[in-house]
């Protein structure tokens, strides 16, 4: 017993001493830690992997130092949406690891959970994904480099109205992002003169879509706006859409780009052909910056097939954090760091980005894409671009 106690005490003493050591390093040549909370195991492990790889690509391109300071990323695994654990991990990162920045966050509740912490510790949190508009309203220290459903849906709804489409059915999964998409679509499309003839909310875990297909057929709609979580559910939905003859009947399939993200396209197969989506990033985006990003990714990890929207979210997030460190001279002051990047613009693999000073969310180009076969490989081929789209959902309310 006493032996254990002694070991424990020694450990604590050592821990404290090394903590002081790091603190005493002061302004020159300190190591600035960035805590990344994301799923690195379990069903969403792919997301964490894309975050980690994108950060590695960024560091390979820009080095691991900013000025005299070394930037070190610390990864914490949060395998599923679990806000209480997210908060405990953030607490540990701040108190024990002494991180100066928090980043990552795939699920909305996990991002929301750290709001009181980042305010009290005065630490910025850069969100790589979590896409509910309301997050950045909860603390002035959130900056987001991903997208929101409003941001993707509004240009899509406007485009559809311009195409002369009058009657649309919305079919969304019954959870936060789905409802967000439905609300955004309905508001925009009806304002543009179209009518939403039916709003279908499908159970999140359902894989049998035949009854919904019948409802869509009966409604006499010309097109559907669909949003489901990426993966098997979208696959089943797209298959049911083709199998029930809706595709042959000429009903057109629209949705936000999450549903046809690159890693899922091979599984979706030919059922996905012709799906029209709007999104902030496509692997096939034609720009020098994107080509360089993909090439570096391939060089480091052997393949760039897994590169997707979460990759650019993390890549641009790393850029924002580097800029914050550079502009604050390595001093840890969250409020100042966020102020320093308000309004900043840069060129990303996905196109030009600007951080909106009010919403602290990226204003970006949203692309209209159609799933087509290019050289035998399914791709989201960009057809049009809508420049400078802000987060339309900011302060819209629930």
């Amino acid at each position, binding site marked *: *017993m006493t032996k254990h106690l002694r070991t*424990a*005490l020694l450990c*604590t003493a050592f*821990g404290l001493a090394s903590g002081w050591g790091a603190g005493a390093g002061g302004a020159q040549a300190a190591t600035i830690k960035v805590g990344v909370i994301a799923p*690195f*195991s*379990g069903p969403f*492990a792919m997301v*964490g992997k894309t975050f980690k790889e994108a950060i590695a690509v960024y560091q390979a391109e820009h080095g691991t130092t900013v000025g005299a300071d070394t930037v070190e990323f610390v*990864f*914490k*695994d949060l*395998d*599923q*949406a*679990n*806000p*209480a*654990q997210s*908060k*405990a*991990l*953030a*607490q*540990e990162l*701040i*108190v*024990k690891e002494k991180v100066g920045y928090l980043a990552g966050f795939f699920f*909305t*509740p996990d991002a*929301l*959970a750290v*709001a*009181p*912490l980042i305010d*009290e*510790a005065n630490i910025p949190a850069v969100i790589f994904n979590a896409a*509910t508009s*309301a997050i950045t309203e*909860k603390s002035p220290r959130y900056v987001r480099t991903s997208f929101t459903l409003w941001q993707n849906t509004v240009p899509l709804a406007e485009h559809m109205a311009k195409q002369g489409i009058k009657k649309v059915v919305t079919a969304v999964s*019954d*959870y*936060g*992002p789905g*409802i967000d998409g439905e609300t955004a679509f309905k508001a925009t499309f009806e304002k543009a003169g179209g009518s939403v003839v039916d709003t279908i909310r499908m159970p*999140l875990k359902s894989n049998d879509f035949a009854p919904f297909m019948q409802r869509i057929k009966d409604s006499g709609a010309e097109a559907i706006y669909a949003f489901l979580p990426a993966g098997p559910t979208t696959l089943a939905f797209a298959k049911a859409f083709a199998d029930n003859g809706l595709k042959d009947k000429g009903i057109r399939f629209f949705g936000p780009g999450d549903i046809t993200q690159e890693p899922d396209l091979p599984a979706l197969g030919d059922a996905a052909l012709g799906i029209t989506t709007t999104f902030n990033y496509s692997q096939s985006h034609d720009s020098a910056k994107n080509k360089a990003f993909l090439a570096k990714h391939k060089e480091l990890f052997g393949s760039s097939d897994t590169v997707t929207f979460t990759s650019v979210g993390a890549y641009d997030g790393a850029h924002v954090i580097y800029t914050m460190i550079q502009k604050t001279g390595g001093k840890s002051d969250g409020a100042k760091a966020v102020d320093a990047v308000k309004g900043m613009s840069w060129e990303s693999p996905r196109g030009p980005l600007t951080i909106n000073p009010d919403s602290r969310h990226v204003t970006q180009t949203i692309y209209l894409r159609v799933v087509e076969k290019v050289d035998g490989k399914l791709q989201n081929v960009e057809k049009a671009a809508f420049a400078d789209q802000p987060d339309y959902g900011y302060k819209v309310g*629930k």
Partner: protein
Amino acid sequence: MMSATPSAATSDRTDAARMTASSPPLAAPLKTPRDLGWIGVPVVAVAGLAAFWLFPSDLGLLTRILAAALYVLSLDLVLGYCGIATLGQAAMFGTGAYVAGIAAVNWVADPLALLAIGGVAGGLIALATGALILHARGLTLLMLTVAVTQIVQEVANKARDWTGGSDGLSGIDPNPVFGAFRFDMVGRTSYLFALAVLVVALLVARRIVRSPFGLACRGVKEDPLRVSALGGSPKAYLVAMYAVAGVFAGVAGALTAVTSGIVGLDSASFSWSAEALVMLVLGGTGRLYGAVIGTVAFMAVHHILAATDPFHWMLFIGLFLMGVVLFLPGGILSGFERLAGLLRRKGDKA
């Protein structure tokens, strides 16, 4: 640290053995050793305080462990003392967390009042669902408990205006405890608050399982037919204990809501129910302290593995669980007991 309990019990038993040798007429009553289980409560309190000093920068994790221990304790009341096989404990935990969270956002800010609200909510839902489903046994009951959890989770998902749906219920900002101790960032208040709640809960749970009511529940677990032959109603006992456990789970949920400031759909999920079962079996069922030890062991190992290798830790935790199940089938506490048994036999020989 926990080994203090069994070893104390052992010395007690060897004393008893010696006394038996000298005074044979007293043999019968002394065969059941004097109960020293109460030592566990101060041991938990002291160990908890020691952890507070030893790991001052891990209080976030430690607070979660304490709240989870309370939750697993509630499962032990149901499974360990009534033999109710359930995968639905998260329904009560989630209800307690959500009701306390909603109360905190809209009306109440006192942390103790929030715990009470969560406990009442958890107890009520357990009473209502328990009365409906506890006529079933075994696998049927298991399925029904899973169904109850799914319903609670779906209600929480649908009632978006109240619960925030899949975005989680945020904005829970309780007042300082007793108006003096603010919930700080490092988590000192949260931790000590949770520790106090757990210790009180252990005392209450101990009192309950040793009361005539608790003994009757154990009777139902062992032989329900006999209990009804004696004039008792097995179902009434089960429902009552189910509701009592619901109160504990509700308080645990409210404790999580108060200390973390947010409630998510995961708090009423199937996997959270299953995890409680894993932690309880790991520690040992029907012992109360097994719940605490199992939770501490599981979550500490989970945390250490996930911190050292955030990418492959799940494999190692699987191996760890298999190891425990293979070598200590009755849980960690049973290992201590077996050790104590060995020592005793040696003592008897000497």
